[in-house]
Each structure stands twice: as C-alpha cells, then as structure tokens.
C-alpha cells in the first residue's frame, strides 16, 4: 500500500459554536478518484476547502504527501501549488481564454515561452484552441467550463479538486464533457476529488465514494457497494433506493433473515438478530414486475426462492428511458420497467400486479443506526 497523498485525522470544523464537520480518519490514495456526495450543508464544501489547504480546521490535522500541514507556514502556498481546483461556476477572469488558462502558471512564475508551450496543447485537448484570443466573457457555458478545466489541468497538479464541475451545464453538453473529461483523467494519474449531486456522475467517476451526512462520514466505499448496500436510510435515499420498507426481523439462520413487513414475510440474505427493526431496501430496477397470477391474488410471500409482493397499480410515471410503476402492496412499492416490457404487461392503474426479487437483491439497514446529529 503506498502512502496516501492526502489524509485527515481527528478533524473538527466549527463556525462559532456550531460544529459543521467531524471526521476521525480519512485518507486519499495517490491516483485515485474520490467522489464526495451529500446534501447541501453536509460539510462537503468545508471538507474540500480543508483538503485543498485553503481553510485550516478548528481541530485536528491534515497530511499532504506524508507531511503534516502547518496552515500558518509560508510553505503551505508551495503545497497548495501542487493542487488545482475547478468550481461549478467557471469563474473566468476578464481576459482572453489563453490568459485565463495561463493564470495558474503565471502565479507560479513560469516564463512566458514555457507558458505558451504548456497552454496550447491543453486548449487543443479541450477543443477550445479556436477561442484562444477571445475574451473569456463572451464564450458559452460549456466552453467556459472547458477553459476552467484546462486552466486546472495545465498546472499538472498532484491533486485536482472538482466542485460539481458539470452541474451547471445543460444535459447534452454535460454528457459530452463528462465523457471527454473521463478520458483525459484516464490518461493522467492525477488524484481527483470530485463533488457531485448527480448519482450517475458519482457512479461512473469514482474509484471510491464518500457520503457525508450532517458533517460526518455516513459511508465510504466503492460506489457500487454503496449503491447496493447503503449504510443508512439517508445514504439509501441519496443513492436512489426508492423502496425503504420498515419491518421487523422474525428469524435469522444460515445467513438468511426473515423479515415481517406487515402483511407478509420476506427472506433476505444477511445477518440481523431477531426482534431488530429494519428497513428493507429495494432498488426499483432490481424488482421484476409481472401481472398478478390469479392463484396468488393474496398469497404474497415466497415462491420458488423468490420473494413476491402482490398489490394494485396506483400510478404509472413515464420517464425518458423507462417507466416507473407504483404499486400498493400494503406498503408503496416502486418498480422500474423498460418501455417494451411495459407494453407487454398492459398495466393500468387499478390492475393487480406483483413484484418479485431474490434474497440477494434486498438489503437490510438496522434502524437506530442513523448518524447522530452533531
């Protein structure tokens, strides 16, 4: 295991009497991409500022490249110059595109000739070479964000901070730039810390994902793991687990948990003690939707190793790529089907339908395990 490029320990950030961030231990490996997610006010920006060595924490320490950072020291500027940041708003200065991209190099005292040699390839790389001498204030939003990304990458930083860099762009521009940017990140070995509100960006961009909740780490892990096994209800909600059904564990044996969710019992892979109240988490896309079989009209439960919930169609919500079907199975359940499958099912509100899922598709969150507020 190589040394982490950035680490924080026993970090506390207070504004007045209000504690906004408390992180015991968190480190970032050299070359990895971390996505930082959380609601507004979760402490994301504060953590970014501390990691970017822009704001000293109230308590605790930051280590950069194995060395403790002294925020009062003049040497911190030299450390800061091994990093670069891009924000949601491109924040370009009143000068040409070229001069904007050259800004960080000028701050570092790089010579004029060297600046030209380093800036122009990045203008090409981001397809903004034709805007080189244009004033930065007249270019489009997508072009401005390309300029802002080039301005950071031209510095060849060890650590790149991206604060929701694509969220202000319109969807086609965002997708295009995201794809290009991923390719560029793949070519460099820059360590990247990326905040986003977008679940898909978090899933495709990050090697690891850090979920912050009310100033604390709610979960840290691979995005896929967090998507499938969220540690708390808030994380589950954030990563799009729409079905969070409260229940009680009635039996546990052999890595199988039987959960009473009101009218029926379901079987889920896991290990939770009987009597524990839990949230049964089901991703809408993991549910198999079918018309209800007449014999099973009210016999929900398990059939052939699958859990089955039977109910009535309440609402049908089309979205751009799929159809969302809301069922009332005693508890509301949302299932996602393709348009083709939906046409075949011929479902209407009021129809009886069933959803099935395997024991491994469901995830249990023990209740009372929520992150306590700071």
């Amino acid at each position, binding site marked *: 295991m190589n040394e982490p490029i950035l680490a924080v320990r026993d970090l506390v950030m207070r504004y007045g009497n209000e504690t906004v961030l408390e992180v015991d231990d968190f480190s970032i490996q050299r070359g990895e991409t971390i996505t930082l997610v959380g609601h507004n006010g979760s402490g994301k920006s504060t953590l970014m500022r501390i990691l970017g060595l822009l704001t000293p924490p109230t308590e605790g320490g930051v280590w950069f490249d194995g060395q403790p950072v002294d925020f009062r020291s003049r040497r911190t500027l030299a450390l800061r110059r091994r990093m670069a940041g891009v924000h949601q708003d491109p924040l370009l*200065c009143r000068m040409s595109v070229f001069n904007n991209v050259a800004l960080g190099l000028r701050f570092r005292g790089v010579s004029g000739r060297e600046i030209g040699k380093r800036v122009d390839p990045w203008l090409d790389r981001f397809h903004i070479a034709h805007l080189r001498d244009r004033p930065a204030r007249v270019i489009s939003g997508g072009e401005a964000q390309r300029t802002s990304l080039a301005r950071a990458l031209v510095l060849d930083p060890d650590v790149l901070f991206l604060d929701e860099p694509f969220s202000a762009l319109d969807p086609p521009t965002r997708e295009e730039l995201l794809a290009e940017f991923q390719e560029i990140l793949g070519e460099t070995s820059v360590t990247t810390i990326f905040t986003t509100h977008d679940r898909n960006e978090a899933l495709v961009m990050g090697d690891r994902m850090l979920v912050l909740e009310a100033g604390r780490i709610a979960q840290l892990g691979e995005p896929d793991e967090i998507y499938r096994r969220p540690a708390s209800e808030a994380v589950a909600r954030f990563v799009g687990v729409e079905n969070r059904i409260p229940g009680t564990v009635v039996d546990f044996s052999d890595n199988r948990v039987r959960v009473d969710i009101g009218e029926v019992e379901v079987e889920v892979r896991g290990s939770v003690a009987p009597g524990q109240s839990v949230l049964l988490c089901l991703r809408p896309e993991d549910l198999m939707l079918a018309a209800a079989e007449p014999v099973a009209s009210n016999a929900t439960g398990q059939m052939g190793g699958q859990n089955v919930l039977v109910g009535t169609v309440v609402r049908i919500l089309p979205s751009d790529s799929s159809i969302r079907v809301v069922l009332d199975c005693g508890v509301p359940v949302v299932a996602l089907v393709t348009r083709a499958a939906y046409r075949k099912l011929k479902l209407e509100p009021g129809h009886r339908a069933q959803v099935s899922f395997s024991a491994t598709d469901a995830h249990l969150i023990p209740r009372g395990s929520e992150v306590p507020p700071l």
Partner: protein
Amino acid sequence: MELIWDGLKHALQLLFEGDPRVLGIAIRSLQLSGLATVISLLIAVPLGTTVALTRFPGRNLLVSLINTGLSLPPVVVGLFVSITLWRSGPLGFLELLYTPTAIVIAQFVICLPVITSLTLAAVQQIDPKLRQQLQSLGASRPQMVGMLLWEARLPMLAAVMAGFGAVISEVGAVMMVGGNILGYTRVLTTATVLETRKGQFDVAIALSLILLLIAFAVTWALTAFQQRGVVR
C-alpha cells in the same frame, strides 16, 4: 450679452497666446490635484481592498464612516486643516498654512474617502467565489488581491475619475488653507473666484475653460481606457 461675448473672445485670445499667468495657474492646479489624487490612491486602494476582503468587529461602523466621507463638506475639511496647521495649532510648527502643501493635504482629505469608498464597493461586487478559485489555482495573497483589482479595474477607474474630479474643482477648502497667493497657491478655481470678483470676466472665463478642458480631458482619457476593456 456683449459682456459674455467679449469675455469669451478675450479668453480664447489669452489661451491661444499662451498667457504665462493663466498657464502657470493651470499647471499648478494639475500638479497639486494630481499629487493629492496619487497620494490618496496609495492609501485608499489598500485600505478599501482590505476592508472589502476582511471581516472584523466594527467593520460596519468603519464602512459607514468611509461612506460618510463621500459627502464630507469641503468647507469643513478646510476649517479643520486650517486649525491643525494654524500657527498655534497642533501642527503649526511645520508652518504649512498658505503653502501648496496645505492645499495637497486638504485635497487629500477630500479625495481619500471618495476613492476608498469606491474601491471598497468595486472589490466587494466581485463574486466571493472568485477569491477561492484564484487561491485554488495557487495564487498567493498579494497575487489574489492583484487579480481582484484587475477584475475591478473598470469601477476602479471610475473611482480615480471621481477622486480627481472632486479635488480639481474644489474651491472652498483650497481658498481657506492655500490663501490664493499669486504664483504660489493660486489655482484655477480660486483664481476664477478672484477674477470674477474683480469683474475681470475674460480672465475668469479663460480659467474656467481650462478647468473644463482639464476635467474633460482626464475623464475622456480614463473613459477611453475603461471602454477598451468592455466586452461588446
């Protein structure tokens, strides 16, 4: 009507012939007001920038005081500078009253709050996120402040124009502390007052024309420079 017409004719004659008395007064005006503006800039820009970029107890009070300085009556400034420089006043030993230095001091006091206040406003209107962006590109604090002033250069030029405009056209305070001594502390405004009182309207008009011309030329030059930076 004849009075005005004759006055104007004679005034133009004085100007084109380059009357040394009139020119001397004009040059002195430019020198003193220019110097007062430059000294004000040296203090007002760092002061305004610091107040704009920092938070400290009593900041609101200080901002209010600076903004009050915008409407500081020049006569009051003249009075206090006079008292301070008076032979028996606290700085009387410097013997500066009725000298060009006294004029520069009074003009500086008038100019300082104008430029400070407008600098403060100019720097404050910049998106605060830009500061963080500049820092995250590796700007040191002086580099960051420099960039913010560069971003605010258009309103900053307006501040310079306002400051210079306020002092070149100032008459009350200048009269009080300078004394309107010919060839020493007589400037365009005080000379105009004197010539008007004497009924020498042609000279007064010539002086006024020069004053207008200077005000226009300075403003025009700064505006041209300012508009160059404006994006279509």
